[in-house]
């Protein structure tokens, strides 16, 4: 018999799925989107009128803010894409050469694994996947052991969307630089959450999401090229109108136009600038947000471990840097728990493999997956308390 619990639509939503996309968005982000659509509306670079210029300024503003956050001097090295996935695809498919050997890790999201696997299946590249510890950490020595003369690319995520642990980028970046290996970093889970600097960390290409830690709207993200990365080393994945060099039928060679064919997501980017401004304006900026998430994580894991029978966190609290907590309740199906949390307590969380089958295999939760809570700037310790009580109830009702 199907038994549906009454949907608690009157209960305020507790949103613990910020690693998928952050919610709610700051009011200023909504205003940014609305302002462009209502008052500006022009197409950047496609016409010479005032509203087109204003649209161009909105896009430039976002570009400059992302460049500052990534630690690159040239804002034209920021290429806007629809999301981190598109940026990772551009980085990988746009820069490999037939016969290349590529190294990645066992903690990657499918947005990295799938384009690489695609190239491997098509026999364009050979691929090595460095095995991480059961806590999701990569020992840089593992990369060194896998290096071959034809290794041309290392692709690695900065923070895992499953464990919330952070990889030692700088060591690996330094190592890649010494050997002229292109170092591609997936910062979808870390940009605006953990400070990074492309120059100091030795990153050549950095993919980011605008809609997660930067609090921008969905449909925003991009790829940042290091200041010393030549645009010619990367092939565009799409070609078309750029509003520049319009007398020519060839794609322009200069940045960002080489990679930004078609009308940009100006509404989204208007919101993204506001999102970045909001993050920076928090007390103590990114550091402050980091501490807030650390506190929520520690509080949740301490209480859950002490008070909920059969609770297993995937990673110790101290190692979680991004407010992403994956766990299981012994004997309970993660999707059942997540559904109960949604229907009875209006708690939004995510069950399953989180688009990262290899990561779950690495930490020993494949194929079952886990329940994931991912905290954001608007979450409170009261919400964590509610979740603890909810999990206790679900636990208590289990046979």
């Amino acid at each position, binding site marked *: 018999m199907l038994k549906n619990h009454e949907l608690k639509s009157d209960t305020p939503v507790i949103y613990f799925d910020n690693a998928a996309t952050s919610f709610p968005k700051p009011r200023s982000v909504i205003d940014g989107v609305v302002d462009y659509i209502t008052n500006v509306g022009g197409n*950047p*670079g*496609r*016409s*010479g*009128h005032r509203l*087109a*210029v204003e649209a*161009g*300024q909105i*896009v*430039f503003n976002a*570009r*400059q803010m992302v460049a500052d956050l990534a630690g690159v*001097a*040239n*804002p*034209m090295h920021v290429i806007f894409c629809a999301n981190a996935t598109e940026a990772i695809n551009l980085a990988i498919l746009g820069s490999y050469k037939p016969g290349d050997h590529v190294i990645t890790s066992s903690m990657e999201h499918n947005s990295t694994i799938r384009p690489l696997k695609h190239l491997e299946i098509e026999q364009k590249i050979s691929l090595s996947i460095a095995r991480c510890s059961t806590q999701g950490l990569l020992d840089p020595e593992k990369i060194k052991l896998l290096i071959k003369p034809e290794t041309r690319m290392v692709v690695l995520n900065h923070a895992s969307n499953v464990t919330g642990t952070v990889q030692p980028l700088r060591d690996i970046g330094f190592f890649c630089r010494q050997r002229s290996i292109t170092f591609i970093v997936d910062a979808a889970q870390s940009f605006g959450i953990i400070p990074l600097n492309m120059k100091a960390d030795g990153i050549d290409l950095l993919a980011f999401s605008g809609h997660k830690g930067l609090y921008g709207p969905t449909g925003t993200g991009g790829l940042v090229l290091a200041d010393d990365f030549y645009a010619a080393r990367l092939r565009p994945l799409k070609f078309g109108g*750029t*509003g*520049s*060099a*319009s*007398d020519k039928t060839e794609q*322009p060679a*200069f940045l*960002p*136009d080489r990679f930004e064919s078609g009308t940009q997501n100006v509404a989204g980017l208007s919101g993204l600038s506001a999102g970045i401004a909001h993050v920076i304006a928090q007390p103590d900026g990114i550091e402050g947000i980091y501490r807030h998430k650390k506190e929520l994580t520690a509080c949740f894991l301490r209480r859950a471990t002490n008070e909920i029978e059969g609770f297993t966190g995937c990673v110790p609290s101290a190692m979680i840097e991004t407010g992403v907590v994956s766990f299981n309740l012994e004997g309970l199906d993660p999707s059942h728990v997540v559904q109960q949390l949604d229907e009875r307590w209006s708690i939004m969380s995510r069950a399953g493999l989180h688009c990262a089958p290899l990561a779950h295999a690495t930490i020993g939760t494949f194929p079952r997956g886990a329940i994931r809570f991912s905290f954001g700037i608007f979450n409170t310790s009261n919400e964590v308390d509610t979740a603890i009580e909810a999990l206790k109830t679900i636990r208590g009702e289990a046979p």
Partner: protein
Amino acid sequence: MAKESIVLFHSHNYAIWADSALKKESVDHKMMPIPRQLSSDCGYCIRIKSDDAELVEKILHVKNIEYDRIEAAL
């Protein structure tokens, strides 16, 4: 009226960047559609006072803002 010049860029993205840089340096300038006789592009260029041309060149150079050329306005 003082003589004016026009700064042309390879792309509107650089024109906007230059606009933001010149604003920061309080250099009098104006964004405008590119005159057809100067280029076939549909984007914009920047009009400046000819007397400021050297200063503008210097600012663009220091900030690494690529531009195509500076021409006397017709």
